[in-house]
C-alpha cells in the first residue's frame, strides 16, 4: 500500500559546506540519502514529495560539522500481511513464481497456487497452466500477501493466489 507520510531525517554537513549554498546542499544530501532507501520501519521510500522544514543547524561539539533535522513528506510503499495487490510475474520455476509489485518482490510457492494449475516445464517460456488460465513471465496476477519479512535493507514477501478472486487478471 502506498502511504504519504511526514518523516524526519538528520543530515550532517562537513564545515566546508557551510556557506551561501548551505540549504541547497542539505536538500541535495537528503535526496541522495533517501534515494533507494528501504527502511525496516517505513518500507520503501519511493519519492520525496516536499521538504517541509529545515531546522537550524546545530554544530557538533569538537567536530565542526553541523547537524540539520529535515522534515519532509514522502511516498512510502509498505506491504502488510493479508493485503491484496496486483503484480507482474517475473520468473517461473518448479518451486513457484516470483512477481514484482513496484519495488517489492513477492514469491508465490507451488503450494499456494491452486491445484488445477500445473507446472509445464516443456513450454517456452516455462509456465503454470490450467484449462482456462496460464501464468508465465509478464502475466498480471492478483496476489494476497501471506508473510512479510523485513530486514535492514529489504522487504521479502510471500503470497498466495489460492483464494477467491485472486490469480490471473484479464
Amino acid at each position, binding site marked *: *500500500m*502506498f*502511504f*504519504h*507520510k511526514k518523516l524526519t531525517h*538528520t543530515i*550532517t554537513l562537513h564545515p566546508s559546506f557551510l556557506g551561501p549554498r548551505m540549504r541547497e546542499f542539505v536538500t541535495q544530501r537528503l535526496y541522495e540519502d533517501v*534515494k*533507494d*532507501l*528501504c527502511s*525496516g*520501519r*517505513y518500507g*520503501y*521510500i*519511493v*519519492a520525496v*514529495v516536499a521538504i517541509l522544514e529545515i531546522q537550524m543547524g546545530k554544530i*557538533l*561539539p*569538537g*567536530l565542526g*560539522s553541523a*547537524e540539520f533535522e529535515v522534515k519532509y513528506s514522502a*511516498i512510502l*510503499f*509498505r506491504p*502488510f*500481511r*493479508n*493485503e*491484496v*495487490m*496486483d503484480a*507482474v510475474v517475473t520468473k517461473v520455476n518448479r518451486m513457484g513464481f516470483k512477481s*514484482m*509489485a*513496484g*519495488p517489492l518482490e513477492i514469491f508465490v510457492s507451488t503450494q499456494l497456487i491452486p491445484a488445477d494449475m500445473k507446472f509445464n516445464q516443456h513450454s517456452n517460456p516455462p509456465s503454470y497452466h490450467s484449462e482456462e488460465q496460464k501464468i508465465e513471465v509478464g502475466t*498480471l496476477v*492478483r496476489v*494476497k*500477501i501471506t508473510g*512479510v*519479512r*523485513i530486514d535492514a535493507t529489504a522487504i521479502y514477501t510471500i503470497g498466495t493466489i489460492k*483464494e*477467491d*478472486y485472486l490469480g490471473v487478471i484479464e
Partner: protein
Amino acid sequence: MTRGEAMIKRKTQPRAQPEGELDAGKLELGEDFQDAECLLISEVKVLLEAQYEGRKGEEEDKEMSGVFTRTLEYVQKFGRYTNRDTIKEVRALMKPTSLHPFECAQLGNLCCSEYEEAKSLVPSIGDKIGDEDLDSLLKQMDSLKKYQG
C-alpha cells in the same frame, strides 16, 4: 563515524513494531501507519509522473533510483484512473462512508465489480457498509473509470 556522531545517531532510532502483530485483514497497521494517509495507485502515478517530468528537464542526466523507476512503471501499468478530476470524484464518493483510509484506497486500487469480491479481498470492511451501499459505490466507481476523459 566518530563516537560523538554515533552517540547522537543511536538516540534517534526508535524500535519498529514486531511484524507478526501487523495484519491488514484486521486493519492492524502498527502505530506508524494506522493513521497515515493512504494513496491510490493513480494518485501515486500523478505524483511520480510530475516528478519525472521535472527531473527530465535538469541539466545533469541524473540516474533515477531503481525504486523510483520500478514504482513508476508499476503505477503506470496499474493506475486505473487517468486524470486528476476522476481521482477527486472517486475520493469524494468514498468520503461520506465510514471506511478506513486503507480500505478506501484498496477499493480504489482493486476496482472490484461486486460487493462480494470487495468484501472478500478487503475483509476488514465487514459490516461497516451495507451490501447494497457497497455495490452502488462500486458501480459508480466503475462508471467513473469507464467514462473518464
